[in-house]
């Protein structure tokens, strides 16, 4: 049984049209090739900020297009990288006086397609750099050449970069700042039910009763480990401890993201948040900003992730800098 309500033809195109119709004051749609750009831009911004990747992770990335965050977002098909031409043309459309910065989640397809676009831009004389987001602890294995996957931290990196770009940083400074944001961020995710497999319907993988996937990705890859389901409190404690332990240079002030993977309700996410805060409090970590909600899902998977970004001096100004986008909570910027 396919539970997804999507048109048979070109679902991503339809969704992006519906998205642009929902936010006419904030974004502009470009149909061929497919991408969206922000209608408004801080006058101090010298570098265009662009991100993109496979669809099925909404509101990422298009929901974060707008003044204060991304200048453009480029969607691929569900769980598939966008074409380099989309990235290339969107980049040309939003490049600033000091070029364009690509925010790329660490997946082979995205690396190649963004990389090709970057080569084309360089050939055109447009300066371009890349920030690679690779926060997922489940793939933190020195053996694999591919490195950690990019997951929830993307929204944190995009917000911080938006604030930094509006502060007038140049391309190289911005690329270095972005690399530092990503390096200071780690995540871990669990799932109690797989997402719907987009093509055939049905669940992408089966879970045995009473077990959960520990360390699941956002494309429905199974986790490396299927574990017996712990208590709610034990599970959240373990995830939070693992993330904190991995941030070797953890400062005592952090940004926190409690992220739904699709079908997990706000009731659950807020309860998780309450427990994560309890653990952070016990470890003496203070939280300077937090997001709780569905920001980087894996289609309609039941599960959630916890992301912590260890803050350095002056990052907080960029976090709280104004941002007006379809999906970034204004309450994080309005105080």
């Amino acid at each position: 049984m396919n539970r997804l309500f999507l048109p048979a033809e070109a679902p991503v195109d339809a969704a992006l049209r519906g998205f642009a119709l929902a936010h006419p004051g904030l974004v502009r749609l470009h149909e061929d090739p497919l991408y969206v750009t922000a209608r408004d831009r801080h006058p101090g911004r010298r570098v265009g900020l662009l991100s993109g990747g496979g669809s099925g992770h909404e509101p990422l990335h298009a929901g974060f297009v707008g003044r204060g965050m991304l200048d453009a977002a480029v969607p691929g098909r569900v769980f598939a990288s966008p074409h380099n031409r989309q990235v290339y043309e969107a980049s040309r459309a939003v490049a600033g006086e000091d070029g364009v910065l690509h925010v790329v989640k660490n997946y082979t397809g995205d690396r190649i397609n963004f990389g090709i676009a970057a080569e084309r831009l360089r050939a055109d004389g447009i300066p371009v750099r890349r920030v690679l987001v690779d926060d997922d602890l489940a793939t933190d294995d020195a053996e694999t050449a591919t490195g950690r996957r990019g997951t929830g931290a993307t929204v944190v990196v995009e917000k911080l970069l938006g604030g930094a770009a509006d502060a007038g940083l140049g391309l190289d400074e911005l690329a270095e700042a972005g690399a530092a944001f990503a390096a200071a961020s780690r995540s871990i995710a669990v799932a109690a039910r797989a997402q719907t497999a987009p093509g055939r319907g049905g669940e992408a993988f089966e879970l045995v009763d009473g077990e959960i996937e520990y360390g699941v990705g956002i494309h429905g890859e199974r986790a490396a480990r299927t574990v017996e389901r712990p208590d709610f409190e034990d599970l959240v404690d373990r995830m939070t401890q693992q993330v904190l332990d991995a941030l070797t240079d953890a400062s005592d002030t952090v940004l926190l993201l409690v992220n739904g993977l699709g079908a997990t309700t706000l009731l659950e996410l807020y309860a998780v948040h309450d427990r994560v805060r309890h653990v952070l409090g016990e470890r003496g970590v203070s939280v300077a900003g937090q997001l709780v909600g569905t920001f980087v899902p894996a289609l309609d998977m039941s599960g959630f992730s916890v992301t912590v970004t260890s803050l350095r001096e002056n990052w907080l100004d960029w976090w709280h800098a104004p941002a007006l986008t379809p999906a970034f909570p204004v309450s994080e910027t309005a105080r």
Partner: protein
Amino acid sequence: MTVTVDQEKVLRTYAEAARTAHDALTALDQLSGDGDFGDNLREGLDGVEAGLDARPGEAPFAVAAGVFLDEVGGTSGPLIGLLFQEVGRALAAHGDGREGWAAGVREGLAAIQRVGEAEPGDRTMVDALAPARDALDGGAGFADAARAALAGARATADIRARRGRASYVGERALGAPDPGATGVALLFWSLARVAEPDADLGSVADAVGWPAAS
């Protein structure tokens, strides 16, 4: 000496070679991948010929780069597009001769490696490009560069899967060369055919060398 090479003729020769080699390239990608490489290369070069016909005034490799970067599918399409882009830029900068080609291949390979992150020995088109670059950088002529590229492509038949996408191939593809390396070697074969028509290079079938003549 300043041998200049007719860019458009190289591309049309390459298109003809891709049509001839289509079935062999398809078979190679069926062994080690998803079977679309023959289609991707042939349709891409057909598109380039159409572009050359439609916009005769434009620089041929710029036209070819646009088609491969914008329209050709698969991993190989945009990577070959990058090669065309850099060759086009280098020929414009250094002239249509050996110097220009040496610079273009060097820059193109660098771009492909920046983007695709493959090293020689990973069983990709890099295994045809790297020997060709080395030959041209070392002062070799076009026919020798083509021989180096073809030999590099042929040698991928003996590469055991090590990492990345090559690791999925396993035993099954051993003995058959990498389709992308083979397809890119045909560019050098075409270049040599145009630049040094008297050189002894053999036919497209000889160049592909697979299935091995019985």
